[in-house]
């Protein structure tokens, strides 16, 4: 198993001063640029530590939000490409459906791959609903635009002999010929995320690494849809390294210490849904069926415990989050066992996207959390035997 250290690079200092919305309409006057600089440097220091500890690195981007100051993932990737030595650099993800210019995306990613000497992992995502209000590209066609941007970027990264032409509904180029071309050939590995079985199956067809977030003990359903798509296209079973899961991780020398860190990390699910309600549901982002459910006043819970109990991620206790497989929290032994059990539920999962820092967790706690994990948990996870892929696929 590989483990990627992830933080959203938050600005947590205003999380209690938001008037109901941490995203889109929270005035940026609340951000002190000098303090933001301190935070950014600290987050990069902690990623350098992750690199030294043998962990890989994941970063993302969000817009107009105090939950994540990384508004352009290529900036973080660029810094990390230069200051880290060995870690894989995963962006999960690059919201390509919200970019009017995918040529620029291909150029940026190829350049980062070259500077990092081939350490880039390219995650393409549709983006969360509240980003739509900022990007202002039509959300109704977002999914189509995502796949077209994907097709274009992949062609741009892998075409080397002559410029090509691209004229379509969404994008218009006459001379596509990116310099530099990517370091990894034919292209850096591709990742994506989903919460739908339909998309999971499609991603399986491509054979991309598929990640889920907050799906807990309901993850297997999505993985199995992926497995179906993968097997139909290839005639072989999807190996565990095709699956990734974003888990909140809090390790401590004692259970008490771990729980204290767990509370700090739980600030992520507790804050991420704080956004003025209309921005959460732009037209066309959710299906008609989901919108009818919303009109009826019915929610759509996503997280389930092993015994089928529904947990609301934004309100659950640390224990709830542990029960739901959203957080792995405890002593090194406990965390190992929780992850091993979760891998078993998944029928194999080869990439843990570890949120080892969130919200107001300070530098010392973060260093301790990463170090304990890297030294006491990770070695055992590396040698963890994944369930037999063929046997899982046959189930």
């Amino acid at each position, binding site marked *: 198993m590989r483990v990627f250290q992830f933080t959203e690079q938050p600005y947590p200092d205003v999380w209690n001063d938001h008037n109901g919305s941490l995203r889109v309409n929270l005035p940026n006057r609340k951000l002190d640029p000098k303090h933001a600089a301190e935070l950014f440097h600290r987050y990069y220091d902690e990623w350098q530590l992750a690199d030294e500890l043998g962990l890989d690195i994941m970063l993302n981007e969000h817009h107009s939000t105090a939950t994540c100051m990384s508004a352009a993932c290529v900036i973080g990737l660029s810094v990390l490409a230069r200051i880290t030595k060995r870690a894989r650099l995963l962006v999960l993800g690059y919201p390509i459906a919200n970019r009017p210019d995918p040529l620029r995306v291909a150029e940026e990613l190829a350049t980062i791959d070259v500077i990092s000497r081939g350490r880039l992992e390219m995650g393409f995502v549709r983006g969360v609903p509240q980003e739509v209000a900022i990007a202002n590209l*039509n959300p*109704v066609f977002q999914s189509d635009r995502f796949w077209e941007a994907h097709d274009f970027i992949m062609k741009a990264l892998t075409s080397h002999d002559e410029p090509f032409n691209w004229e379509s509904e969404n994008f218009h180029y006459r001379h596509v010929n990116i310099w530099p071309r990517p370091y990894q050939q034919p292209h850096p590995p591709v990742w994506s995320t989903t919460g739908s079985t339909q998309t999971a199956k499609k991603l399986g067809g491509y054979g991309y690494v598929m990640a889920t977030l907050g799906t807990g003990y309901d993850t297997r359903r999505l993985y199995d849809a992926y497995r179906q798509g993968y097997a139909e296209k290839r005639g072989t079973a999807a190996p565990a390294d095709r699956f990734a899961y974003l888990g909140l991780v809090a390790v401590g020398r004692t259970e008490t210490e771990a729980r204290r860190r767990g509370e700090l990390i739980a600030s992520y699910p507790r804050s991420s849904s704080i956004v003025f309600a*209309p921005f959460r549901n732009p037209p*066309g982002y959710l299906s*008609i069926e989901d919108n*009818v459910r919303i*009109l009826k*006043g019915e929610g759509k819970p996503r997280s389930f415990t092993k015994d089928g109990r529904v947990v609301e991620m934004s309100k659950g206790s640390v224990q709830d989050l542990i029960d739901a497989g959203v957080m792995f929290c405890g002593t090194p032994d406990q965390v190992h066992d929780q992850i091993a059990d979760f891998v078993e539920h998944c029928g194999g999962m080869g990439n843990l996207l570890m949120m080892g820092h969130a919200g107001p967790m300070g530098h010392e706690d973060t260093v301790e959390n990463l170090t304990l994990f890297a030294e006491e948990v990770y070695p055992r996870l590396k040698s963890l035997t994944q369930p037999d892929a063929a046997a899982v696929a046959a189930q």
Partner: protein
Amino acid sequence: MGVLAPETIRAEAGGIGVVLSERGKGPPLLFLHPGHPAGRVDPDAPVLELLAENRRVIAPTHPGFGMDAAPPVLTNVDDLAYLYLDLMESLDLRDCVVVGVGFGGWIAAEMAVKTCERMSHLVLANAVGIKIGNRETRDIADIYALTDKQLAELVYADPARMAREPKTLPADELTMMARSREATGRYGWTPYLHNPKLKGRLHRIQVPTLVLWGEADRVVTPDYGRAYADAIAGARFATIDGAGHFPHLEQPGAFAQRVLEFVEETRP
């Protein structure tokens, strides 16, 4: 009132199926409904009955606003304008009064700047579709950045009477509400509920035009309506009291009366 009951039929226009309700006999009147949060006009709506007293009223449901998803080829208001020009041709409507409310008014204006050939009159009620202010002024309220309650307050003169409580509605109504919210975004997300070119083309409208405005509309204010009327040669501007963005629903009697009187008074 001696009016025929509405009939829901499926017509063809340029190869695309259009669901429409039809009622009444006489010269034709094409009624183009608004977008979210009202959407499709119920075939039994009082406004259609009143308009149909001496006329054949044809009220299509814009593709994507009813029970069916929009055909993929229809992506903007230009597409809808051509669709309805095709429809007028395929139904062979002549001397047709074209009435559009809100988003439907935008479609009607886009049709009229292309050709007024089959039109006798144009009525734009609380129509969106043009840009009048500077680049930092949002002319049209962002209906997607409001809660349902906030939106109802901008849309209706009397939200307490008019706003519908979704939980009490049947499943098909909820599906159409959800579709209408999505379809309004489909056709009008960006540029937001307008075509930057439309205002400069309004001079092409050559039929008697009434710009009619629910005076309490705060999605697009009466001043926006006056600017619309100013850009159309000879257009008349009038307001309806006790109505907001959807005067055909809030004051159907006054709405139908204004439309029919205007048509009578400006008969060529």
